């Protein structure tokens, strides 16, 4: 203030000196405020070293589950004095990027989830970001491990001699279970003159509904096929049904080409569905949220969706009268298969100074009482098998078929991303009538060979 007041009275050179000094001081302050905080430890660490009860930080992306998670955190704090802080980062794409960026800077929280394929999960483990929970799972004769459905744990497990180069063990804790199946609207079934207690069991029965749909000007199957991975899911379901698991995995290993007649048969199913009229129009660019709205509002007869949809439909239309069915089988040679297993899993940061507390929290979180509460509030299938008795009927229909569940994360071998993209985009091309199943199988095989050659060269 004084300097400002005397500014008009001082000489030019003094004024300069003053400005320079002030400038340097301000510059130093600015740099200090920018860079010095980065030299210290992060705030939660500081808190935790100074107080006896630590705060466990959890990152997740599930907007619909923040409230029950916060409630469980409150209960845990009341019980143990340990504060659990759930930080929500959505949408899921943004969350994925945040986790990757945090991994680069070794700034991951105590507990986090990974939204990625098994190879990325493996990369996190190999980089030392994820703790091996096997000793904890196996302690007391496998007490914790026995909480879970085997299929829920399988996605978090790496077996001996896996192709990812990860030491065998369990690296994640499933907090819920998902199965991805077909759903049908019972009221619309009656309008079509179909028996709502008898959804189509075979592919031919399913295709036959196409004529009824056209006659009534109704939309058939909706799904998020614009997001691609759901096409991949159904294609894999039928691949398992037509050629069996061993041949599918042999294809992934590069031992069976995509031009094999069985793969052409799988791709032809999509052409048959399109030709028969059982697919909703505009399906190839449809995002799952749109598909959910259409099905919830009774504007589509079938949906292909995961068990998370129970909560979504309940929010959109609580009176929706629908049933769950396996995708209609196209062959009797092998059982129909669906994707399923762990829906959401949490991992423990191996570098966290609060690793043991984080593991204890997850053990408590996956106990029966907490799982029942979580399942009730979120309408998701619990990962704890003892909690399954207390779930609503529609969720029970999803859980009934868990025996058919499989998932790429449990196969021990994964497909190259460009091949998956070529297959999914190729199916879109078949649906829009741009390519034949044979052409797509050749295109996919070309990319597969290119990727195999690249891998060999490495």
């Amino acid at each position: 203030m004084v300097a400002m007041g005397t500014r008009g009275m001082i000489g030019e050179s003094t004024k300069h000196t003053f400005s320079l000094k002030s400038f340097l001081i301000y510059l130093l302050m600015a740099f200090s405020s920018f860079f010095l905080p980065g030299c210290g430890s992060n705030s939660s660490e500081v808190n935790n070293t100074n107080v006896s009860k630590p705060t466990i930080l959890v990152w997740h992306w599930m907007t619909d589950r923040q409230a029950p998670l916060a409630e469980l955190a409150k209960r845990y704090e009341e019980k143990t004095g340990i504060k659990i802080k759930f930080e929500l980062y959505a949408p899921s794409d943004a969350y994925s990027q945040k986790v990757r960026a945090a991994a680069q800077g070794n700034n991951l929280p105590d507990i986090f989830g990974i939204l990625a394929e098994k190879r990325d999960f493996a990369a996190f483990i190999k980089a030392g970001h994820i703790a091996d929970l096997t000793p904890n799972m196996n302690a007391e004769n496998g007490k914790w491990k026995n909480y879970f459905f085997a299929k829920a744990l399988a996605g978090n497990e790496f077996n001996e001699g896996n192709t990812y180069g990860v030491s065998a063990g369990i690296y994640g804790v499933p907090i819920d279970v998902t199965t991805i199946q077909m759903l049908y609207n019972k009221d619309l079934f009656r309008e079509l003159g179909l028996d709502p207690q008898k959804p189509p069991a075979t592919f031919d029965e399913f295709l036959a509904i196409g004529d009824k749909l056209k006659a009534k000007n109704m939309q058939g199957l909706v799904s998020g096929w614009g997001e691609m991975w759901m096409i991949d899911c159904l294609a894999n379901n039928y691949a398992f049904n037509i050629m069996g698991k061993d041949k599918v995995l042999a294809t992934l290993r590069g031992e069976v080409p995509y031009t094999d007649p069985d793969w052409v048969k799988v791709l032809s199913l999509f052409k048959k569905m399109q030709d028969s009229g059982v697919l909703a129009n505009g399906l190839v660019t449809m995002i799952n949220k749109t598909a959910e709205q259409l099905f919830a509002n009774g504007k589509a007869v079938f949906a292909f969706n995961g068990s998370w949809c129970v909560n979504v439909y309940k929010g959109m239309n609580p009176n929706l009268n629908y049933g769950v069915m396996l995708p209609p089988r196209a062959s009797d040679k092998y059982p129909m298969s669906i994707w399923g297993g762990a829906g959401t899993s949490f991992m423990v940061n191996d570098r966290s100074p609060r690793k043991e507390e984080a593991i204890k929290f997850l053990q408590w979180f996956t106990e029966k009482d907490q799982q029942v509460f979580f399942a009730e509030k979120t309408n998701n299938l619990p990962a704890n098998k003892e909690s399954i008795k207390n779930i609503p009927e529609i969720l029970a229909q999803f859980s009934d078929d868990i025996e058919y569940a499989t998932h790429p994360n449990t196969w021990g071998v994964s497909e190259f991303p460009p091949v998956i993209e070529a297959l999914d985009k190729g199916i879109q091309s078949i649906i829009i009538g741009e390519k034949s199943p044979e052409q797509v199988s050749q295109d996919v095989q070309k990319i597969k060979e290119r990727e195999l050659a690249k891998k060999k060269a490495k």
Partner: protein
Amino acid sequence: MNYLKLKSTFENYLFILPAVVIFAIFYIIPFIWVFQLSVFEWDGISPLKTAIGLANFKEVITGDPIWWQSMLNAGYITIIALTFQNAVAFFLALACDREIRFKNWFRVIFFIPPVLSEVVVGLVWQWILDGNFGLLNGWLTKIGLAHLAKYWLSDPATALNTVAIIHCWKGFGWGFLIFLAGLQGIPRELYEAARVDGANAFYCFKNITIPLMIPVIVLVGILTILGTMQAFVLIMAMTGGGPAYHTQVPVLRIYASMQGASRFGYACAQSLIFGVILITISFIQYRFSGKQSR
């Protein structure tokens, strides 16, 4: 004397130092990192990166036909934006430059689309254009033009054009604003003198407005190319690049390489090649337009 000059020079450099530091941290260093990453095979997680030389660049240029299809798609949208979008923007700016009623209202209204969130715009248009229950098809049916109703975003015959038109709708406000500023900078005396000499409106437009607006047209053209070639959010929200690859654009491909395939090095190589292409196009257009204006 020399001391004072040296001191003054030092002071000047000191004052620009913060800006240089910020520019270096947020622009130059990331650029160097992008270049560095482009010669590695890296999944974005692992601490180990494998040096592979220029293999990523070679693969983008010779082994990735989808990349070049996405370039063609973006080029097509850019051509529509350069012609249709900028023509609309220019003539609306011309109209608002005149003494018409409610011209300030029009200025505000025309500038609303650019300030809206691209995700919101994409989702709203997706809803309007929905083939089954969309407003557009509903209106077409109501006025007896049901035969024109289409699956605008999922039909390969219409998807790219539809995306291009929505992109133009979203973007024309920027061009409008810059054109309007340019038109208002033309001295009115020139028009008055021309009218005194008997020039009609078309003559004034052709011989005064257009020549004096060329630098502005070049600027809007370059901004349109850069903005349209880098279109991403709107397309992601409307079609996700589908059906099949019909609305794929380069930034979607870069995103797919990085996020979908976990190929960070390859994505960096794609973005560097894309950057070079954009700079080259802008430079050519600038030189070409510079010659025209002379």
